[in-house]
């Protein structure tokens, strides 16, 4: 009897060890550990802020936006759902530059959702060549190119592009996830498939020639880990991109893992870099969903896993930035924590993706996905949904300024 119990106990221990080691193996197999820059201590960070007077009815936060510079002046173009307009701000002179109303009939924007909840009736993304060519993604249905005099320059059906190029799916972009951006003169969009089996690797990046409508597919797909878990990363399955790219490279990452990837078109290679934060999960747990399951399960998963945002290259300081939301435990005594309670962490890397700084930002201050770069530094909006000090009469940004201490 004793021998039998001992056998059962040993078997139980063996299974536990196997289980724990299997759990760790995903982390070891798919995640690259980060390295610290030797000169990390020579870098310093300063915080500055700007505010631009706006009217009470204007929005004080933009989630769909693009940044543009011309004649040494930096601009922000943001989509305001409440006023159905593209608001152009002169960041250099701290003024409102122009408001482009999308309600004009000749622009083809119909029935825009003022709450911005229904993305099929919204401007999901903005990109810009210059003030004569502002590209608006209207509900992932059409690209509408306008100028600042509200003339429609071009209208491109994304469905038409898919058909023309025999694409077994469609093209999408969202300002806060896969942001469309220009790369080598072509517009990069996210290619999604009608039928996705998570077996064969397929391209997820398509470059669109706006002049002839031709698509070219880049050899970039979801990472091995998402294929391994067959896409079951809950709300965190997306590829994340930025318009702030280093010339000659295409840098991208995924919401569900800490690695950063860089595509080099000259030799068609992809290099992966470790970018693990010092605390929290580096890879999202897989989550199964069976029809009839409580959708709350996904919310819990979202809260209890880290979320890694886009990687932005700062051409002025030659560093990369990447924000992330660290995982927390949802249950908090008899209460519950939400995604708003996740700490926002900024990692700054040198050009070899070695860590220069890792900064945990103040809780409940900054809103995710409100960041961009100008020659002044890294802008971020202090409009967290739990921030009680939001000024409705100013568009405010904090500017994170990184510089290398020359005296060191």
């Amino acid at each position, binding site marked *: 009897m004793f021998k039998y119990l001992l056998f059962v106990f040993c078997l139980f221990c063996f299974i536990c060890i196997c289980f724990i080691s299997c759990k760790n193996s995903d982390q070891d197999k798919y995640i690259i550990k980060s390295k610290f820059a030797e000169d990390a201590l020579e870098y310093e960070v300063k915080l500055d802020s700007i505010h631009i007077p706006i009217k009470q009815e204007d929005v004080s936060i933009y989630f769909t936006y693009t940044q543009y510079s011309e004649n040494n002046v930096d601009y922000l173009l943001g989509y305001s759902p409440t006023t159905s307009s593209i608001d152009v701000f002169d960041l250099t002179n701290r003024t409102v530059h122009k408001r482009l109303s999308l309600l004009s009939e000749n622009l083809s924007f119909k029935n825009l959702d003022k709450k911005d909840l229904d993305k099929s009736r919204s401007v999901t993304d903005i990109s810009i060549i210059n003030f004569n060519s502002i590209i608006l993604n209207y509900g992932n249905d059409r690209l509408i190119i306008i100028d600042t005099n509200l003339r429609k320059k071009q209208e491109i059906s994304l469905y038409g592009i898919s058909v023309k190029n025999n694409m077994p799916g469609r093209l999408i972009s969202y300002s806060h996830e896969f942001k469309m951006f220009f790369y080598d003169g072509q517009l990069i969009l996210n290619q999604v498939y009608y039928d996705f089996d998570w077996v064969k690797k397929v391209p997820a990046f398509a470059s669109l020639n706006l002049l002839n409508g031709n698509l070219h597919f880049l050899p970039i797909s979801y990472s091995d880990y998402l294929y391994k878990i067959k896409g079951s990363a809950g709300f965190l399955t997306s590829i994340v991109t930025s318009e702030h790219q280093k010339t000659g490279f295409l840098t991208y990452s995924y919401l569900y893992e800490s690695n950063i990837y860089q595509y080099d078109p000259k030799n068609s290679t992809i290099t992966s870099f470790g970018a693990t934060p010092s605390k929290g999960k580096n890879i999202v747990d897989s989550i199964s969903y069976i029809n009839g399951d409580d959708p709350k399960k996904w919310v819990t998963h979202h809260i209890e896993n880290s979320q890694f945002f886009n990687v932005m290259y700062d051409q002025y300081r030659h560093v990369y930035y990447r924000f992330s939301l660290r995982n927390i435990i949802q249950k908090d005594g008899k209460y519950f924590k939400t995604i*708003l309670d996740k700490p926002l962490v900024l990692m700054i890397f040198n050009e070899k993706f070695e860590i220069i700084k890792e900064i945990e930002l103040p809780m409940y201050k900054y809103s995710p996905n409100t960041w961009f770069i100008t020659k002044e530094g890294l802008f971020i909006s202090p409009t967290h949904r739990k921030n009680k000090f939001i000024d409705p009469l100013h568009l405010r940004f904090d500017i994170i300024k990184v510089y290398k201490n020359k005296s060191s």
Partner: protein
Amino acid sequence: MRRYFIILIVFFTITSCYKHKVSEEEEHLNMYFKEKQNIDLSKLDNYFIIVISGNCGSCTEKTIKFLKQLGNKRDTKFSDYKKIVVIPSNNAEVLDSIKNSNIQFIVDEGFEMEKFGVNFQRNAFFEFKNSRLFYKDWLYLDNVDSIAKKYGYPLK
């Protein structure tokens, strides 16, 4: 006779020990209303609670039409029911479409609902009868039609 007496004792013991089992959702709603809104749901008799989610497509025209009918002051069908709609502040514009109704609207200003576990990915509809949960469903897509029909408010 003795046998009947024992059965009776057992029956009373079982019924007296029986306590209405409160679901997790009810528990969270009770906690939210009590602590955040100072409303003790156990003191209400019959009531509807509709929790609007802050997600995409949550307040469709159909949902608004249903809420308008449910809250119609001239309609006496559910006059003995208290009607409460909780709506996150990012979706609060919906209130502009539903004026002059007998629905009590609660705007969840600081996104506090989730703190109490009241975080539905879709709009949730609850009917309480005699303070007990009688019916619940997602007020979402085609369900809006079927719920409206169930309560005698055809939307077509």
